[in-house]
């Protein structure tokens, strides 16, 4: 109960802070917002002073900042996210549409990273300093060091251009998932594997791990019954934090692969100064961070009763 209360307060603070920060940043961007919004609405070739002025008048862009922000906050309390300045559609509908696509991509990426990273990490952690451990250290450091856009391009070059195995872009079929999900998953798995490796090495060196074997359990039984359960707690906790990396990656990877998700939408909204869209999208990402970490808290408290205290 305590957890939920704390998290609810956090969610509220996140909402206010994100709203204020995005609002201030959007105001601070150079250039005339009216021109950008007009360009978003009518296309760059059709923008002229008249169109920009029309937009400015319609949206009241010249007004002072504080009332506009308080207005947004007031609407938010009524669960009204406003309408997009570009399309005129309610923000909530636009986000709802894009969020599904992003969650599917992120979900596949996390699943893929969990299949790749932790098992290798645990195997390495069982024999710290062994061959697998050393190779994994090099590979995971290397993978982590490659930025996501570069990873995406490398994968496209190798798998789509060179071997023509997979489509470089597109959306709708299962095979379209593979490249963007892999581009995200490799970076995540690199870190997952390290976390799992360190947790396994630490737990393997604990007295209870030896004691389970002295009791007569085989190494495999000890790993399954005592190792994995204990490794899962730091791993899950880290998974919650990895959400930040994931969001960052989703924005980049969606742009590279033309994936119609929330990251893609965020980039476009920023270009066309679509403040309600930016605020709505950022808020949505921020709140899902709180939500995911709350869920992970609840799950780890269930696994590890010491955390509930």
């Amino acid at each position, binding site marked *: 109960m305590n957890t939920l209360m704390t998290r609810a307060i956090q969610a509220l603070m996140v909402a206010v802070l994100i709203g204020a920060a995005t609002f201030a940043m959007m105001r601070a961007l150079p250039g005339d917002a009216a021109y950008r919004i007009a360009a978003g609405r009518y296309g760059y070739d059709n923008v002229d002073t008249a169109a920009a002025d029309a937009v400015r008048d319609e949206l009241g862009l010249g007004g002072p900042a504080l009332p506009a922000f308080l207005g947004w906050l007031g609407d938010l309390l009524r669960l009204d996210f406003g309408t997009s300045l570009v399309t005129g559609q309610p923000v909530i509908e636009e986000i709802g549409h894009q969020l599904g696509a992003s969650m599917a991509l992120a979900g596949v990426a996390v699943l893929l990273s969990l299949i790749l990273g932790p098992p290798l990490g645990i195997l390495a952690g069982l024999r710290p300093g062994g061959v697998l451990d050393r190779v994994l250290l090099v590979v995971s450091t290397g993978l982590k060091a490659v930025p996501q856009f570069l990873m995406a391009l490398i994968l496209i070059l190798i798998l789509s251009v060179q071997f023509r195995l997979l489509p470089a872009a597109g959306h709708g079929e299962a095979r379209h998932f593979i490249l963007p999900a892999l581009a995200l998953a490799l970076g995540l798995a690199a870190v997952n594997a390290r976390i799992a490796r360190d947790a396994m090495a630490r737990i393997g060196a604990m007295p209870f791990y030896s*004691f389970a074997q002295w*009791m007569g359990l085989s190494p495999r039984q000890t790993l399954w019954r*005592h190792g994995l359960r204990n490794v899962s707690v730091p791993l899950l906790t880290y998974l919650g934090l990895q959400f930040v990396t994931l969001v960052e990656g989703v924005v980049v990877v969606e742009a590279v692969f033309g994936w119609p998700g929330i990251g893609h939408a965020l980039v476009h909204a920023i270009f066309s100064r679509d403040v309600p869209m930016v605020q709505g999208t950022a808020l949505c990402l921020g709140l899902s961070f709180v939500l995911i970490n709350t869920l992970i808290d609840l799950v780890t408290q269930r696994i*590890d009763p010491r955390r509930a205290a």
Partner: protein
Amino acid sequence: MSLLKAEDITVSQGGTPILHPVSLHLEPGEPLVILGETGSGKSLLAQAIMGTLPRDLTARGRVALGDHLLDAARPGGFRPLWGRQIAVLPQEPWLSLDPLMRAERQVTEAHHLVRGLGAAEAQAQAASDLNHLGLTGAGQRYPHELSGGMAQRVAIAAARAGGARIVIADEPTKGLDAARRDEVADLLLAELARGGGLLVITHDLALARRIGGQMIVLREGRVVEAGATASVMSAPTQAYTRDLIAADPENWAPRKPAAAGLPILTATGLAAERGGTRLFSDLSFDLTEGRILGITGPSGCGKSTLGDVVLGLTGASAGRVEKAAGLTATAFQKLYQDPVAAFPRHQTLGRTLADVARRHGQPETRIDTLMPRLGLAPALLTRRPGAVSGGELQRLALLRLLLVRPKVIFADEPTSRLDPITQKQVIDLLCETATAEGCAIMLVSHDPALVARTADHVLSLGPAAANADVTAPRVVGALQ
């Protein structure tokens, strides 16, 4: 026929021998105690016999276990015997149970997976084991919800569930107070009464005396003396054994009571609680220059909390602490239990001490004057905390306190991690410090003998209700 026979066991590290040939045999119903200080090789001997040595150490020698003949050089051969022939009791029971698994399940899995009972039968057997050990109703608790003594019993049940007849206990009483120590000794002996074998590795003379049977005394990887425990303890033939036995607080000469100096602090009607539980109430005492106040009581009774109240680190829930006029907060200092944790790891000791001296406006020459008085070689100052022994480090910790010119030193179990001989040195120094520096010392120890022979007056704290445990006699009675 011997249950276990080990011949010419040696252990070496990269070609350097660290345990010289030792042979031993374990008879049914007669315990064997291996006594030694830290670094004497006693744990290595046990690990060589069980095949659990760390990878970088190699053992040689032959071990006969029932019908099995094993080569100590090939630890893999021991593995199938773990739990089935040899039960190994862990040092620190709390750390030896899986923190995420309920107590009864940890016993059940040994019955099920090691002994091969069916799932339902294993569970019934585990429940009955725990009942016998006086742990009725505790099976559904997690290890952190058990007291140290209870965790020890769960670990014993789990270790023996596989059906092993030989029990090897490596420092089974580490960190336990006197009452719990006797309880563990009685439990081990009760197991022995069923016709098993028992090998106990310890540095604790009281435990050795209680276990009895045969004894091997080790020092620096060599056997110093061997024989029946009772005769070795009463009439040691070797000088080292005599020193070791003389260092047992039971055998210390009582300290001469100090003349009362100026009063430093008066506590009246103190009470404190932790997590809503009353730890102690209505405690009144005085601290005066040069005198030692001993504080004893079982773990969890509030000894450390009392120290925090006196030092002014935490408030009392009732009562008053009146300090003599003119004393600053830094006149109240604490000597910690684990000296290694009380020093910055990556600084040389000289640097740490010089920093403290400078911070408190003391000339650095005071370090040089104090060093020989505490029996410390100047060369130690160039080292880091990891590179000096525990006894030296605790004396350096005392030196660091003295740089601050304290009036009250709260020494919280200052020797519980030290060997008996080192313990005696450190306690003697602490006593001298009280007289020489004119400060009052509050000496906390779980060892009533140590406190009785050192302190001018003793404060005995009762057990806190929250930690009330099943009493030893009942448990042992249930076992027999």
